[in-house]
Every structure is written in C-alpha cells, then in structure tokens.
C-alpha cells in the first residue's frame, strides 16, 4: 500500500506533538504524500497512543482506527500524534499529563482543547491538515483559538472505530485544516460507513466547497450573543455575519430555550459515559503503572488509577459514577437525555425556518496559560459548542477576525447531514475576506 517515505522533522516549539514519525510512509491517492497529524486518542497500529495520559504511556495499539486506515488508503503520511487534554477532558490542553501545548499566535496562551495539539500543529505551520475529535467543542474551540478551520461532522458520518472513547453518544472525529478547503478534502477521505461501528451512517462526503449563499437564511440565536460572551468577540462575529448578508444571505433572529440546561445535560452525559468507558484502565492488559500482583485486586486497581489518571479525569469519573448511581440515575442521566431531546427539538423548530445557524464559537479569546483553574468556570466556556454535540448536527469554526491580537472563530451549524452546506457557508465567508 505504501511505497515512499518522506522526512518529517519540524521544529515544535509549541509542543503540538507527543510522537513524531520522522520517516512516515505514504502511498497513492487523493492525499498522496501529504503529512497528516493525528490526535493521540485515535488508535494507530504500531504507534504509541496515550490520550495524553500516564495510564496509557507505552500502549501500542495492535490495530488502526478506521479513519487511519482510510488515511493510509488515500496515500497520506501519518506525521505524528498530537497533544490533547487527557482523554479529551478539557478546553485548553492544559490537562495533558505530558505538559500543555502553546498557542502559536501567543505562546503565553492556550491553544484551546481538547484537540489543542492538532490546532497548534496547523497554526504553527507544521502540517496543513490534522484529525481532531469533538465531544463538546474540542475541534471547534482550538480552531477558533488558533485561527484555523475545524469541522465537527454530523454524528455518525465518520466512524468512531478506534477512537478511544470518552463520550460515545456525543463525540466525532473531524477534520481540521489551514483553510476550509483543507477541511473539506480531509472530510472527504474520512467520512463514510464503517460496519465495525454500529452507530455509523452511510453518508460519504464528496464535495468541493462552493461560494454560493444567495438567499441563504441564517438563524441568529439570542443566547449566542448574551451576557456571557465577550462584547468584543460578539462584535467581530456580528461583522462577519454582516459580510455574509452582503453576499446575499438573510438573518433571522431566533432562540434556543433549552440552552439554559444544555451545558448541565452535556456534562452529566459525558461524565456518565466516561466513568464507564474509563473503568477498563487497570494496567492489566495494557498501559500502566503495572498493577502490584502482591496486592489484592481492588487495592492494586485503585493504586493504578490514582497514579495513572490526572485530577480532572478522576473528577469527571467520579461525577459520572455519581450521576449513574442507584437513586440518582433518574435525577441526572435520565433527565439529561430528555434535555437532549429538547435541544434537538429546539434546533428542528429553528431549522424549519432557516438553513444554518451562526454565532461565535467561543465566548472569549484564548485564555492565558493557568488562567482557568476552577473546573466549573472551565466547563462554562463550552456553552456555545455543546448544543451541536447534544443534537448531533454538523458545526464548523472558521476564523473571522481578531480581538486584542487573538483569533476569533465564526461558528456555522447546520441540519443533520448538511455538512456540505455548512462547509459552503464557511468557505464563502473565508474567500470573501482573503
């Protein structure tokens, strides 16, 4: 399949990569010879995959994720594995067990998370394209903070087989790139049905972005421009939307009432699923530290996990365990699923009258390193990105200007399976301001 190798030894002052493949093989196809960075929660056969956690240090998967197989088939060169928040849990990549990634636009600031490494690799000029994953905004947030493009596909369009699960019902692998065209090219390679993923949908992606938005109806939710959003960020995003109106679109004000509990529903769901997904990490079959076989099972297991997981991971596992525990399931997890239905219903209602929804990707610009130390205030930063995950709809972030020298992202959300349209709108904007 492969036939050539290239040299990949870029300077990495941002600590974007955890593993670099300096002589990656590549073959023929639409991505022939193109170096692609892969987030370190995506399984790569023969290449260490850690999820930026000590508990998986040294783990070498014996199999490739489906998307990696597709990358190889397309001739791409797997350039390396990028840094992330441990197990995808975070919004800044500061939760990596191996040190944070720095934002190439300002190395005193975070690149966003959890796909911060992939975003920095692109923004820092090391690669043009990368794979990220998005559970509650983890592609779009770093794309916005680093000034690149990133797409969270419709749930089910990209196989999750080989993605080390954090929150199965919410997450998707998605493409990140210097430009919207890069994002579309990469999406074309990774999208499509996979029989090894029971939630996979048969919707391949074969679309060249078009700059056509005449008559496009854009919903503007009031909750996306409310008091929680930095006014300068809101201004820049409004200007970007005005540009789209100049190009022929019309705006329609709307509201998403379920936003008031969307974030709670998100965190209850993702921590619950995570508490179950991460229970398998005991150091017995892979990872470490190795369990002490002189201790009893229970003791040894606790030791491995106390040492191997960082505090944010342990916090979320505990929250999820609590939410699922007897007596609380109805109050938390069951309620959260009804909340999701309501979010879906709100979007469906809005989409009856508009084609896409637009707003800021993040309520602020990139934080300074160490600025967000309180978990809850960190969670609140996800407020604008989680609704798309809860509903399973496609959402893209495309750079739309700067505030205080730092990039701002314009978020476009669309109906289920209208990823092509979402990309077109982002492309149209991007091309208009080049």
């Amino acid at each position, binding site marked *: 399949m492969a036939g050539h190798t290239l040299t990949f030894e870029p300077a990495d002052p941002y600590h974007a990569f955890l593993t670099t493949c300096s002589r990656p093989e590549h073959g023929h196809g639409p991505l022939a010879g193109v170096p692609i960075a892969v987030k370190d929660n995506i399984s790569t056969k023969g290449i260490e995959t850690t999820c930026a956690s000590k508990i998986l240090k040294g783990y070498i998967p*014996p199999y490739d994720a489906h998307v990696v197989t597709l990358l190889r088939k397309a001739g791409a060169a797997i350039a390396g594995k990028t840094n992330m928040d441990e197990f995808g849990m975070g919004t800044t990549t500061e939760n990596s067990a191996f040190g944070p990634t720095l934002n190439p636009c300002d190395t005193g600031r975070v690149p966003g998370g959890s796909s911060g490494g992939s975003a920095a690799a692109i923004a820092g000029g090391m690669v043009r394209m990368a794979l990220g994953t998005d559970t509650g905004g983890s592609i779009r947030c770093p794309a916005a903070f680093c000034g690149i493009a990133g797409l969270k596909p419709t749930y089910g369009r990209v196989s999750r087989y080989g993605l080390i699960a954090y929150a199965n019902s919410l997450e998707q692998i998605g493409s990140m790139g210097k430009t919207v065209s890069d994002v579309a090219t990469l999406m074309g390679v990774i999208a499509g049905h996979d029989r090894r993923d029971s939630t996979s949908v048969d919707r391949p992606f074969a679309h060249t972005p078009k700059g056509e938005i005449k008559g496009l109806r854009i919903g503007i939710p009031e909750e996306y421009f409310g008091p929680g959003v930095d006014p300068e960020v809101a201004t820049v995003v409004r200007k970007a939307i005005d540009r789209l109106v100049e190009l022929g679109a019309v705006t329609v004000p709307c509201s998403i009432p379920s936003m008031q509990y969307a974030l*709670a529903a998100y965190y209850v769901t993702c921590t619950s699923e995570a508490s179950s997904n991460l229970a398998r990490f005991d150091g017995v*079959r892979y990872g470490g530290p190795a369990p002490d076989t002189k201790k009893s*099972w229970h003791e040894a297991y606790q030791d491995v*996990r106390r040492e191997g997981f960082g505090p944010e991971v342990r916090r979320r596992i*505990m*929250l999820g365990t*609590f939410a699922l525990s007897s007596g609380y399931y109805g109050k938390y997890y069951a309620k959260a699923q009804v909340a999701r239905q309501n979010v879906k219903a709100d979007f469906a209602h809005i989409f009856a009258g508009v084609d896409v929804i637009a707003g800021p990707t993040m309520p602020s610009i990139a934080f300074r390193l160490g600025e967000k130390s309180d978990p809850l205030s960190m969670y609140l930063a996800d407020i604008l990105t989680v609704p798309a995950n809860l509903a399973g709809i496609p959402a893209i972030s495309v750079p739309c200007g700067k505030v205080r020298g730092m990039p701002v992202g314009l978020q476009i959300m669309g109906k289920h399976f209208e990823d092509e349209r979402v990309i077109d709108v982002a492309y149209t904007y991007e091309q208009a301001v080049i």
Partner: protein
Amino acid sequence: MVTEHEVKHIAELADVGIHKEELETFTHQFNAILEYFDTLDLVRGVPAAEDGLVNILREDEIEPSLTQEEVLRNAPAREDGFIKAPRVM
C-alpha cells in the same frame, strides 16, 4: 450537598482513589458542579420514541483473531499464555 465522606465513598465506588490532600478541594468543586447540574430540574418532557438506526447486525461469520503474542504484547505480566492479574479475594 455532598460531604467529604460521601466523596470518598464515590471515589471508592469508581475505584479512582483520591490523595488525602485532594479530598477537601475535590469536595468543594464537586458540590459546585452538582449545584450547577441542578439546572436539569428545569427540564420538562418525557423520553420520546427512538427514531434513529435500528437492527444494526452482522452475519455470523468468523474473522481472524489477534495472535496470542499480539494479545499479550501490551500486558506487563504474563504466564504460559495467560495474562497475570492481582488475586481476587
């Protein structure tokens, strides 16, 4: 409101373990987050019928397994083809 004692219990239930130094901070953070989760009390409605994919099945066909070596390769301890684990009480 959860107490430090309950937080410790949850850590045991989840088998994650907390360092003694973390207990107070964890409890404080836990409570703040749980208070935030209470916004779910605003949720109205009942679970709706399933409208997505159903009956996703595969045929009963044999596919190649990993070799024993591949299975054991990432394990820190093995014996005679088995994976070694701490004793269960």
